[in-house]
């Protein structure tokens, strides 16, 4: 198993207030990993730093064996990391169709790439709204679009930050099913979400952070077995 992602001693600060104090995280190609923790513990910050959206104060990030620390976000994006951001961030001035057409890319020459058509097949609701602008969608529709937009870049690593937020139960199930399918097809994913049971079923490895530090790390079986961790670090 080759190493896909390796984060070492990551520290990030917003101005004077430091948020991450040395996060370590590693993923192998084809793996699904999660990042868990309560509100405000630094999950989003970790993902943003990974995508080059926050400057790294200390530590390093290696992706596909290359040191990508300090790269500009677009370069990281082209290297194969795609983000489904917290809060969806659809473009208000692009139609649904344009969201998918504009960012479609198959840089790795995948045999069966994600195309706009495939995304529409996954979320028929989006197909019905293809002429709507990004801000003319319901919250849930925006979430679907954000996932679709990341998929059409055909990334090596798909990063999802609270991608099920605001989705109806049925759709949420669909997303989980879709992630499992992606996973089965060999797509590497890094997920932040609050539905721990679902994550245990989906992912191989879990990292729990608390106040910007890793406090627990282990496999799905270990996490499933120890509900003390759930209670202590996740407030469940």
């Amino acid at each position: 198993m080759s190493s896909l992602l390796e984060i070492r001693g990551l520290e990030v600060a917003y101005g004077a207030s430091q948020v991450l104090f040395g996060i370590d995280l590693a993923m192998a190609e084809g793996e699904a990993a999660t990042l868990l923790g309560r509100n405000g513990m630094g999950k989003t910050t970790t993902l943003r730093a990974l995508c080059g959206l926050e400057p790294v104060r200390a530590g390093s990030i290696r992706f596909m064996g290359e040191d990508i620390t300090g790269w500009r976000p677009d370069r990281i994006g082209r290297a194969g990391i795609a983000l489904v951001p917290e809060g969806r961030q659809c473009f208000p001035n692009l139609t649904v169709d344009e969201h998918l057409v504009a960012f479609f890319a198959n840089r790795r020459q995948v045999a069966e790439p994600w195309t706009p058509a495939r995304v529409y097949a996954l979320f028929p609701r989006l197909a019905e709204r293809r002429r709507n602008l990004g801000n003319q969608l319901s919250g849930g529709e925006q979430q679907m679009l954000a996932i679709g937009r990341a998929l059409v870049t055909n990334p090596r690593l798909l990063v999802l930050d609270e991608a099920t937020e605001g989705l109806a139960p049925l759709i949420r199930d669909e997303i989980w099913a879709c992630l499992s399918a992606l996973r089965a097809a060999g797509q590497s994913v890094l997920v932040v979400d609050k539905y721990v049971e679902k994550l245990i079923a989906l992912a191989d490895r879990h990292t729990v952070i608390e106040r910007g530090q890793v406090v627990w790390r282990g496999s799905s079986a270990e996490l499933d077995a120890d509900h003390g961790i759930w209670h202590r670090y996740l407030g469940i």
Partner: protein
Amino acid sequence: MTQLVLEQALNGLQFGLMLFLLAAGLTLVFGIMDCINLAHGSLYMVGAYFVAAAAQAADSFWLGLGAGIAGTAVLGLLLELSLFRQLYRRDHLSQVLATFALILIANESVRLIWGPAPLLLNPPAALSGPVEIAGFFYPAYRLVIIGVGLVVAALLYLLVAKSRIGMWVRAGAANREMTEALGINVRGLFTAVFVFGAALCALAGGLLGPLLAVQVGMGESVLILAFVVIIIGGIGSIRGALVGALIVGTVDTLGRALLPTLLRATLPADAAATLGPALASILIYLLMAAILFFKPQGLFPARA
């Protein structure tokens, strides 16, 4: 009479397309990248000066036009790299201040280099006279402007609304961070758009120079008109800029042509003589205020 109406309609079209040429670059930078560029008019002025100077040196209008456009594009590149790059992220007020400053600098520099007197820029001899169409004469050069305006409109529409580059630019304008995270080099893209906008300015300046005066301060009066156009059309919409330009062109032309006569028929001669021209000169502003009153986002709001 029909001939006069026809000619005035053609004039409206021509004035509208001329405004469109000016507004086109502005829509790109202002409407799409959301950067208020008051110095747009200055680029237009500098473009016209470059074209005029080059045309004089080369003794050919077309060579001058090419060289002037290239020169303005280079200037645009330098400006973008040194200043505008910092401005995109700032609020509108900072943009207003910085580009207002650019106007001051540009006007003064042009005066320093070329002196205060207007520069000579004549159309190519072949186009300098009128041509006959359907029994009446119309300046050939104005027909060229109509043609170029239509071509630029079509190209821009395809580029912005239909091409992936256009989508990236719009996405980058709305949410730069996210666009970058999706693998698009927004910085480079914006530079390219700005340079393109500057080249459009020079095209407009070079083409309009033979019709209008190439002089210091030519940018400001035009700038306001261009703003009016894109505001009426709805900021960020190429279609809106075109429609807005045509509306302004037509209304202004017809207003000037008809209002005095109309008022003379209805009002006492004295009142008509003062009111007519006064009304005609504020007509487009009235129009803009009225349109914004009913459609506060312009006719074709790009972002509903």
